Structure formats: structure tokens, C-alpha cells
């Protein structure tokens, strides 16, 4: 008998779980930076799925896609952190649940 190799679904499910955890982080954490990290986690989990697809479908598109996604998330990291720094300078906090100057 031959043991079946790891099905793509397994990787995809891992990706889904990571995505969900990231989402949970976004929804629950107060610290803006941790929220941002959770978002990064979400993007990364998408990368996992993409790589899985490209491996399963024998196409390079996914890999290239991931490559660009990483570039994008890097850029977002830069801008995002800059925003948080500025936010901290003006408001002395980056706790997203203390920031609702504008509402209703």
C-alpha cells in the first residue's frame, strides 16, 4: 500500500484557519499594531493558499502572485507603521478602542 501524499486541501485548511485567527485578532485586539500584525497574518495565510494552488495546478502564477503580495504587504507595513507613529504623536495612544473622535 502507498500512503497518500498530503492533499492540497490540507494546506488550504491550514490557510483558512490562519486567516480566521488573523481576523479574530483584528476584531479583538485593542493595540493598533497588533491589529495590524493580525492583518499581516491574514495576508500570509492567503499566500499559503496561493502557493498551494500553484503547486497543485502546476502553474507559476500563484508563486508570482505571492511575490507581489509580499511586496504589497511590505509597503503597507511601512505606511501603516508611519500612520501609527503619527497617531501616537498626536493622540498619545494607539489603542483603537480609544479613538472615536468621529462617530455617528
Amino acid at each position, binding site marked *: 500500500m502507498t500512503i497518500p501524499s498530503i492533499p492540497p486541501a490540507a494546506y488550504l485548511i491550514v490557510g483558512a484557519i490562519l486567516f480566521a485567527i488573523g481576523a479574530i485578532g483584528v476584531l479583538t485586539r485593542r493595540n493598533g499594531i497588533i491589529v495590524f500584525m493580525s492583518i499581516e497574518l491574514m495576508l500570509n495565510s492567503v499566500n499559503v493558499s496561493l502557493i498551494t494552488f500553484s503547486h497543485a495546478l502546476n502553474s507559476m502564477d500563484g508563486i508570482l502572485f505571492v511575490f507581489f503580495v509580499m511586496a504589497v504587504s511590505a509597503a503597507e507595513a511601512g*505606511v501603516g507603521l508611519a500612520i501609527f507613529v503619527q497617531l501616537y504623536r498626536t493622540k498619545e495612544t494607539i489603542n483603537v478602542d480609544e479613538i472615536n473622535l468621529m462617530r455617528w
Partner: protein
Amino acid sequence: MNISIPEINFSIIAPELILSAFGLVILLLGAFFSEKRGNDHLGYISLLGIVVAFFFTVPLMETSQHAFNNMIAADGFGVFFKVTFLIIASLTVLISIGYVQRADIASGEYYALIMFATVGMMLMAAATSLLTLFLGLETMSISIYVLAGIMRGDKKSIESAMKYFILGAFATGFLLYGMAMVYGSTGSIILEEIAAYIKSKPELLRSPMIIIGIALLTIGFGFKVAMVPFHMWTPDVYEGAPTSITAFMATGVKAAGFAGFVRVFFSALGPFQPDWIAIMWVLAVATMTVGNVVAIVQTNIKRMLAYSSIAHAGYILVAFVAGNDLGTASILFYLLVYAFMNIGAFTIVILLGKKGEENVLISDYAGIGFRYPLLGVSMTIFMLSMAGIPPLGGFMGKFYVFSAAVKAKYYWLAIIGVLNSAVSVYYYLRVTVLMYFREPEREITGLTPFSLASRIAVIIAIGGVLYMGIFPANVLALAKRSIMGLM
């Protein structure tokens, strides 16, 4: 190993190239000139860039060609949107001149980022692959994140930047996941190939993965176009961002979002229309209703316009649901006319503010109708146009949108739509009520003399609104031709 370079056609991406180049130039100039005296010339330079780009865009109108391995195309659809974006950008620049130093904004980076954002929008409109679409969207979004928070030391500005950034990134995650699933279930990121593959494999219509992918894409695009329930960022961000940028967002980002939305859903995922119709119907109704109903109770005009922009997204979604060629054409038409009237309105908001007090409360408008007659008349025209009163552009836009819905026999959708626009009349009228019927409780004085640029902007906006209201035939014909390639 052999390296086969795919066809490279710079004429197709010429507008983007030009804008990016001008962006760089402005950046450099901005670095050299001190910001002591206002850097209006930077604004004019970027205008020049936009005009040049315009001249490179128009010739693409008739062509329908792909390049860069089908990553991007120059078809009527894309070009129409590119023109729209160029108009939006030019108006934004016009109204920014003068406002920039009033709001103490680093003008070099400001204009450059507007250029880059415009590039991103144009890429979104022209993209024919998920990847270029994604990158265009990110280019736009990142620039806008920054622009929203560019007013240094302004609490609201930075807060709005933060909110927009977090939620935007969050939404990007969903969008990306959706793209991944589409890719996973079709094996390609080129829209044409996706469509072909779906046609070739009917059983795909039942595949959960692609359907969930569509759901996730809906979330991603829905966020950009401020569709309920992904709209909640809109009022806060619009209120906090610099007014010129608010105008830019309300028109440009929305238009770009719809460009991608329509492009992906109609040209790639067309066969799934039956699946999304029902849900989009509900969302369209929700978007219209929430936007209008909440706008009624607003006291801050920027927030009010934000909610109204949500409502307008709802109207456009009506055409989206209709899904026929008329509907798509009317989306293009509506977005263009909406750009004119909305930027016009925000221009008035800017002109009424001065350093230190921006006068963004609707109550601040009491009695200005007779003290600044032209201003009042212009604001009235924009408000009535948004309310859909003939013979203004807004009416024609609604007319086409609803006629599309009626043509597709979505009578109830159309009826809800018109009733909504009747409700919307209430808060648009409120502005005119204050401007003309009420005596001011406090005088608004010492306004900075209206700069030539802003005057031009208002005139262009009014011209656009009137032209598209009284002689809409040409623009509509253009829009109809533009979507030929798409459907």
C-alpha cells in the same frame, strides 16, 4: 533557456507612465522649493501632467488592444474610466491649490501622491488580470491612506487615516483571498482565460470554491465602493480627511472600485450572474436606504455628503443588478456626472472654510445664499443635481440607472430607488433651506478670496452637470460604445 519577451506596447500604458513621471518630477521639485510660499506651481505642473496624459488617453478610445501578456488592455471601458479619473484628478488638483497651504500640507508629496493614486485607479480600470487589478488597487489605496492622514497634527485627519488603513487592509485580505480562490478554481489570473475556462466547464458553476471566492471579492470591492454593510468607514474617513481628498475619494476611489467590480464580475464571472443577482439586489436596497436615511440626521456637511455618497453607490448598484448593457453604460455615465457634482459640492465646502475654522457644520451655511450669491447658486445646483432634479446631470444619471432596472424588469428595485431619491431630497434641500431661508446666527467673515483655480473648478463642475443634464446624448452614446468590448 530561451526568453520570449511578450509584446510591449507603451502606448497603452502611456497615460500611467506620464502621470508617474510627472509624479516623480513634482516630488523632486517639491523637495527643492521650500513650503514657505504656497507651491501653487506644483499644482499647475500636475495639471499639465494630467492634460498631457489626457491627450494620450483619448486616442486609445477606439482601439481595443491587450498587451503585457493580457495583463492590461486599452478598451473603451478602461479608457472611459481613465478619462473620468483624469477629470477627477484635475478637479481635485484645482481645488487643492490654495487649500493646500491653508491646511498646512506638504504640497510636493501631496500632488505626487495624487498622481500615484490616479495611476493606481487607471490601472484598476484597465487591468485585465487579477494581479494588475490588485496592484492597481493597492497603489491607489496606499496613496489614499497617506493622503487621508496628510494634515499634520490634525487629530481627525490621522484618525481617519488609521481607520481607513486598518479597514482597507482588512478588506484587502478578503479581496486577495477571493482572488486566490478564483485562481484556484480556474487556474488562471487572466480574466479572459478565467471566463473561457468557466464556459468550458459548466460544472464549475456549482463549485463551492469559486462561489465563496465571489463572495469574498464582493466584500473586497464592496468596501471600496462603500456598499452596505462595508460602508461604515466612509463617514469617518470622509469627515477626517482633507476636504479635497474627501472629494477625490468619494469620486475617484468609488469609480475605480466600480471599474474593477464591473470588470471582474461581468467580463470574468459573467456566468455567475444568477448567483449574485439576489444578494446584490438586497445590498443595493440596503445601501440606498441606509445612506439616505442616515444622511438625513447629519449635522456635518462632510458627513452628510459621505452618507449621500453611500446612497449614490446604492443607485449605481441598482444598475449593477440590472446587469444589462444599458445598466453598465449607465454606471459609467452616473459615475462621471457624480464626479462633477460631488467635487463641485466639496469645492463649495472648501471655499466656505478658512484657516482654523472649516465651517463644515450645515448650520454654518445659514444665510450665505444671499451673501455669496454665486456660491449659493452653485451649491444649490449641485445639491439639486444630486437630488436628481431635472434638467441637471444627476437626474439623467438616475434616469438611465432606473431605466436599466426597469428594462431588466426589476420594477420594485426601481421603485425603491426613486422613493429613496425622494427621501434624499429632504437633506439636499436642507442645505438650500439654510442658505436661502434662514438668517445666520453668526456671520462668516474673512474668507480667503476665492482663488482662480477653485473658480475654474466650480465652473467646470457646473458645466459638466448642466451639459450632462441637458445634452446627455453624446456622453451616453460614448458610454454605450465603451462597454461593447466588455459584455
